[in-house]
């Protein structure tokens, strides 16, 4: 090969070509590096993430109103990104409003959320409802999450069928509840509709209601986690010791269920209840929308399931359907803009308006009552703090509690269920409290 001017020229032009390509790539990449936190003409743009599908249009509306009402912050509504992936990339949204459950409580536990105790809005929240946050996780006593919407669930009943079989008041004790079931049974109508085919329906309905009405759920899990690897016969609490009686009560209701519940799924249950085949249905406000689509004129009400013969023991199941948080590490400009949007969202008129429109309950102290007749039966329990978060919701996803409950309902074996739960939590403790 001739090492002459030709190859020398080729080498130089190749180098020059590389240089141009490199510079060009850098020029194209530069705008991308500052994406996500931009301010154009004085307006800071922040990302507001809210992924509950049913209320995306509602929040789109709120965001548009906010953007139009002032000129320092532009909010973009992200309704589809994965929060975990965003945290791993170090790129969480500036402000988030989503369901608060055990999985999202991991953000709290790992300390990646900002402490909101300094915000004036944190003082507006009902302390009983704020306490729901730390029942799953807390980080050094900080206020990591502000509740925005509380969903309450109980036993949905068909008001017309109640009149038909002669039930004038909702049951407030266990004996009254059994009497209502008997009245339906003698009238030839299924008292309670169960859909074992979808394990979550049995877990969040029959299981959570029965356990919650008889057990201090938050206290139980606190002691369970404290027992850690010592969980078993010698620890102060265990599933065997505390859940055996509620599970037996669950099985005792089996004669009042529909035939072949294992073949029925959520959609079948909604259809059956909507068409008047059952008097009662253990579901939440999310099912109400589905039922009303099937039968818009259906008159429904909800009452919390009583499990003892003392009406004062009755509590209703709740969950934090929406809660607001900010990430701990964000640039000051983003933080200020996010707080501005939070101020807007947490105005009582906006919070209360959202909850009123969506069959939910406002977390603010002295909030106006929910007026929808479908859920008013739960109002006094929510206002007085007589509620709990479902026992099934404290179980990490790695333990398929829904499947275990389904198996227990099919086999009737309570001991197998409780010992499996104890073993699973003990094994979990080995790797989480190491």
């Amino acid at each position, binding site marked *: 090969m001739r090492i002459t001017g030709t190859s020398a020229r080729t080498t130089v032009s190749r180098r020059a070509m590389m240089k141009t390509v490199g510079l060009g790539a850098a020029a194209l990449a530069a705008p991308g590096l500052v994406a996500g936190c931009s301010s154009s003409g004085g307006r800071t743009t922040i990302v507001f993430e809210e992924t509950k599908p049913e209320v995306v249009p509602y929040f789109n509306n709120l965001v548009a109103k906010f953007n139009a009402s002032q000129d320092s912050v532009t909010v973009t509504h992200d309704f589809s990104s994965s929060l975990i992936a965003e945290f*791993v990339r170090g790129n969480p949204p500036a402000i988030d409003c989503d369901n608060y459950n055990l999985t999202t409580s*991991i953000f709290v*536990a*790992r300390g990646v959320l900002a402490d909101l105790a300094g915000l004036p809005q944190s003082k507006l929240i009902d302390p009983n409802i704020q306490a729901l946050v730390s029942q799953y996780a807390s980080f050094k006593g900080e206020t990591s999450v502000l509740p925005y919407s509380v969903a309450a669930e109980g036993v949905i009943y068909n008001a017309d069928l109640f009149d038909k079989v002669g039930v004038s008041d909702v049951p407030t004790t266990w004996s009254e509840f059994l009497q209502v079931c008997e009245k339906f049974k003698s009238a030839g109508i299924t008292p309670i509709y169960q859909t074992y085919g979808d394990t979550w329906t049995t877990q969040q309905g029959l299981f959570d209601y029965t356990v919650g009405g008889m057990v201090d759920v938050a206290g139980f899990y606190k002691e369970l986690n404290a027992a850690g690897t010592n969980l078993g016969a010698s620890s102060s609490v265990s599933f065997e010791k505390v859940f055996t009686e509620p599970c037996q009560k669950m099985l005792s209701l089996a004669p009042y269920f529909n035939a072949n519940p294992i073949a029925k799924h959520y959609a079948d249950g909604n259809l059956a209840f909507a068409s008047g085949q059952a008097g009662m249905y253990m579901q939440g406000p999310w099912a109400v929308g589905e039922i009303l689509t099937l039968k818009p004129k259906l008159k429904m009400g909800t009452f919390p399931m009583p499990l003892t013969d003392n009406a004062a023991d009755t509590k209703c199941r709740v969950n934090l359907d929406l809660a607001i948080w900010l990430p701990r590490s964000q640039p000051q400009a983003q933080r200020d803009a996010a707080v501005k949007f939070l101020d807007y969202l947490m105005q009582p008129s906006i919070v209360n308006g959202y909850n009123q429109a969506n069959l939910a309950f406002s977390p603010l102290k002295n909030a106006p009552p929910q007026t929808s007749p479908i859920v008013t039966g739960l109002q006094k329990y929510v206002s007085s703090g007589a509620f709990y978060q479902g026992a099934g919701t404290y179980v*990490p*996803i790695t333990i398929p509690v829904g499947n275990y409950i389904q198996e227990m309902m099919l086999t009737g074996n309570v001991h197998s269920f409780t010992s499996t739960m104890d073993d699973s939590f003990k094994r*979990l403790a*080995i*790797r989480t409290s*190491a």
Partner: protein
Amino acid sequence: MSATSAPSGRGSANPLGTLKRLFFPVAPTYLLMVIPAILLFTFFIMYPAVNGMFYSLTNYVGYGAWKFIGLANYQAAFHDSTVVDSYGFTLLFSVVATIVVNVTAMLLALALNARIKWQTGFRTLFFMPMVISGLVISYVFTFIISNSIPIIAGEIHFTPFTSSLLANQNWAWLGVVFVASWQAIPGALIIFLAGLVAIPTEVYEAASIDGASAWTQFWRMTFPLLFPFFIINSVLTFKNFLNVYDIVVGLTNGGPGTATQSVAMTIYNGFFNGDYGYQMANAVIFFIVTVVLAVVQLGILRRRGGVI
């Protein structure tokens, strides 16, 4: 511009040439071709794998505070029924599916190699499942198995199939085997056809002159000559089936319950359940299991007379 093209006779006297041969025993041209691949492989495969192995010794969830917990994840994985059951399902599924795919592909290859009408057309038809995405295949088959077949079975009163196979806790895995095999057969088929085409026709002529029956021809001549391809196919399909993910997610999403949850699915879900470190331990165990199985399988097959 390469050291190997330096004019002969100047080699040892040229210090540059000696240096080049010392630091670049391989010609730079080859290095230039290989280095990008090595870099990509290291960055996209080695680095995440080593990263994952490191985090398997911690309780890291991908962000936030974490701490070392030593081998606690591994300890827990061995006793976790979800993990153990997923290995059981994956191994059973892989073995059965490998057998189904190899036997069917072999038979199909023999059929498609024979002198039949529209040979090219049939070959195209049988290759088509390979070009469709796994998710698309599984969604279509979910509909067929859960809706169409029960309706047809109801019409002709054939009761075993009136409820969806995929909703049956004990037999849903057969549905997964069927769909996964359906997709994997064309791949094995191509390799077997290539092997068959390579067998010279004189061999068959000689056999038929000697009066060998069709079965003897196959078992004593075709199959041994195809054995290397059989090794390739069985090792590759087994390894691919061990990693099954998209078919399972599309067909049953691990259901009913966790009956058809594969190991890959369990590991992947761990990321979203705050169990990243734990599932990385599972992944390391899975890696070791896969390597051991591949080595054992290759060893057995080689000893039986392959030339691979």
